[in-house]
């Protein structure tokens, strides 16, 4: 389907209806041995929506979804949208406490998950209805549900779904978006930058619950009537090569850390004949990682910057015009300005804070008025919190305004890692910051030991193990430096920037 004929749609559900009637037999989703056509996808969406209605889910209520990537995520997300509820797509790997916090924050009416997920034990509040996708009773409900469902009418610019992103203290923030946002990012980025068509087969190593993965695997391919390959677990490099080959994927999406891992398993030039383009986002792609990948595969990687708040990428390199080490150029339809701390626009070539405006940006954070006021500025500008330099329309990342940093495309809040470390008896005080390792950021900790403990590789291993027991692996410090004291302000706030500078200074001496 050509983009021109899609211009009339303002509601994403109309697009799915149109695909089901115009290209019903075309494969929408591949997942392991399953192959789901657009007609079947629409039918299952309707069944899911009808089940939600049958258990009393009303329009404007939030429905939390925690699934490994697979067809169920699609059925539940669009099923909820279709009956007027607001889906909240979460990682299947959060802790029970994290699920409880989000269920409470978004005032969820229902929780859909699978028995293997920690979410299955969450939501004990009587008001949250829980459905387990792998429960035989739920499957009976689905089979009996009507395969037709009238779409609940919602204006395209009304809040339709919520994504969660990490806050500076590690508490997740809800980012609401409309269906217009989905359509806008699909047209502007997937259309103008990737030239996506219905002939594409998409595979994203980044998961659906990330804003990046959501666009890659769900919004974009479904908008253009393309096919998506879904992988429920965490793919290894060999899984990725196998999937690209098996499904003849044409577009591959990953974060820089993943390209790095792929390179580390490649023993020489690797021919991936089906791929026409690779995409990277989530953190800055080092120029040398781009160069090595290009040399080994002959494929370009289009690096870009996006955010959960903007739904997807708004600055990107272009095919045939890649500037390694930079985020590239504005995606059509978005505007940016680079400002100093007082909000004044800085001169070209000067570092400043990047602000973005476009029709896919979230209007506020869910239930967080003060954080909304800080980042969602008047006239639709969004403060990204990223320092950038713009020169001849090309944008290059310089760092963060706050202490957050990204590892493998996911935010790391130092506060959260410090909390986990502090519960180890040997840790009297600690501070977490980031350092570069092979061009990519990794967490690094500074520890003041409790009396009676001494610096020792065994102790380092124990503290790392202690963190790994509580937090996802990407948050675990790769290095622990033992120090006599942690630099702080007069009010006792940790000065992580001083630790970063101190570390960089030492590196320069080597």
């Amino acid at each position, binding site marked *: 389907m050509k983009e021109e004929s899609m211009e009339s749609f303002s509601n994403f559900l109309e697009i799915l209806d149109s695909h089901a009637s115009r290209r019903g037999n075309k494969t929408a989703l591949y997942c392991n041995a399953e192959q789901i056509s657009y007609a079947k996808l629409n039918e299952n969406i309707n069944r899911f929506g009808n089940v939600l209605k049958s258990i009393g889910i009303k329009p404007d209520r939030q429905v939390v979804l925690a699934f490994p990537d697979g067809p169920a995520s699609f059925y539940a997300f669009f099923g909820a949208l279709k009956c007027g509820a607001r889906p909240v797509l979460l990682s299947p790997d959060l802790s029970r406490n994290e699920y409880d916090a989000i269920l409470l924050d978004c005032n969820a009416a229902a929780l859909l998950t699978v028995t293997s997920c920690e979410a299955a034990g969450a939501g004990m509040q009587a008001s949250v209805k829980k459905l387990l996708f792998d429960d035989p009773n739920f499957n009976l409900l689905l089979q009996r549900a009507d395969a037709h469902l009238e779409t609940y009418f919602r204006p395209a610019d009304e809040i339709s779904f919520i994504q969660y992103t990490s806050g500076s203290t590690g508490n997740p923030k809800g980012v609401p978006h409309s269906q217009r946002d989905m359509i806008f990012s699909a047209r502007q980025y997937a259309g103008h930058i990737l030239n996506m068509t219905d002939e594409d087969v998409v595979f994203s190593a980044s998961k659906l619950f990330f804003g990046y993965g959501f666009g890659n695997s769900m919004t974009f391919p479904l908008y253009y009537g393309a096919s998506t390959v879904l992988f429920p677990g965490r793919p290894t490099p*060999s899984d990725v090569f196998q999937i690209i080959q098996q499904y003849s994927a044409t577009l591959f999406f990953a974060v820089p*850390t993943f390209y790095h891992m792929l390179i580390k398993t490649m023993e020489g030039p690797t021919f991936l004949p089906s791929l026409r383009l690779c995409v990277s986002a989530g953190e800055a792609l080092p120029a*040398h*990682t781009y160069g*090595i990948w290009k040399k080994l595969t002959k494929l370009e990687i289009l690096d870009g910057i996006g955010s959960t708040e903007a739904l997807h990428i708004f600055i990107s390199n272009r095919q045939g015009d890649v500037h390694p080490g930079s985020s590239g150029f504005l995606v059509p339809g978005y505007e940016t300005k680079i400002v100093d701390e007082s909000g004044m626009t800085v001169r070209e070539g000067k570092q400043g804070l990047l602000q973005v405006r476009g029709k896919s940006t979230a209007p506020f954070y869910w239930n967080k008025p003060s954080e909304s006021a800080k980042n969602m500025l008047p006239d639709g500008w969004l403060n990204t919190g990223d320092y950038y330099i713009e020169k001849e329309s090309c944008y290059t990342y310089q760092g963060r305004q706050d202490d957050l940093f990204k590892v493998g495309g996911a935010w790391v809040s130092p506060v959260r890692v410090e909390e986990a470390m502090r519960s180890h008896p040997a840790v009297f005080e600690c501070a977490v910051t980031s350092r570069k*390792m092979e061009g990519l950021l*990794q967490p690094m900790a500074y520890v003041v030991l409790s009396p009676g403990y001494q610096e020792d590789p065994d102790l380092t291993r124990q503290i790392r193990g202690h963190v790994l027991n509580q937090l996802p692996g*990407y948050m675990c410090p790769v*290095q622990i430096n033992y120090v006599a004291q942690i630099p702080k302000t007069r009010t006792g706030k940790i000065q992580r920037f001083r630790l970063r500078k101190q570390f960089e200074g030492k590196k320069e001496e*080597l």
Partner: protein
Amino acid sequence: MKEITAAAVIDLMKKVGVEEKVIKKLKNDVPLLKQGIDSIDLPAILAAAEKQYDLDLSDCTADKVKTIDEFVSFINARIK
């Protein structure tokens, strides 16, 4: 400084807590990420190597240290 051997790299792995069963099966000329070393352990091994041999791997490229043999050559080239 004396040149290192594969045993020194194995020692670094033990220091950061790579499991003994993974270490036992390691082949020196096969990428570590294909042999059970994961993306959490590998940067920790690199950080331990930095400390032990006074190196800076901040901007080292991804293709330099993939196998134990490459690790040994990389370190030896820098400690001479």
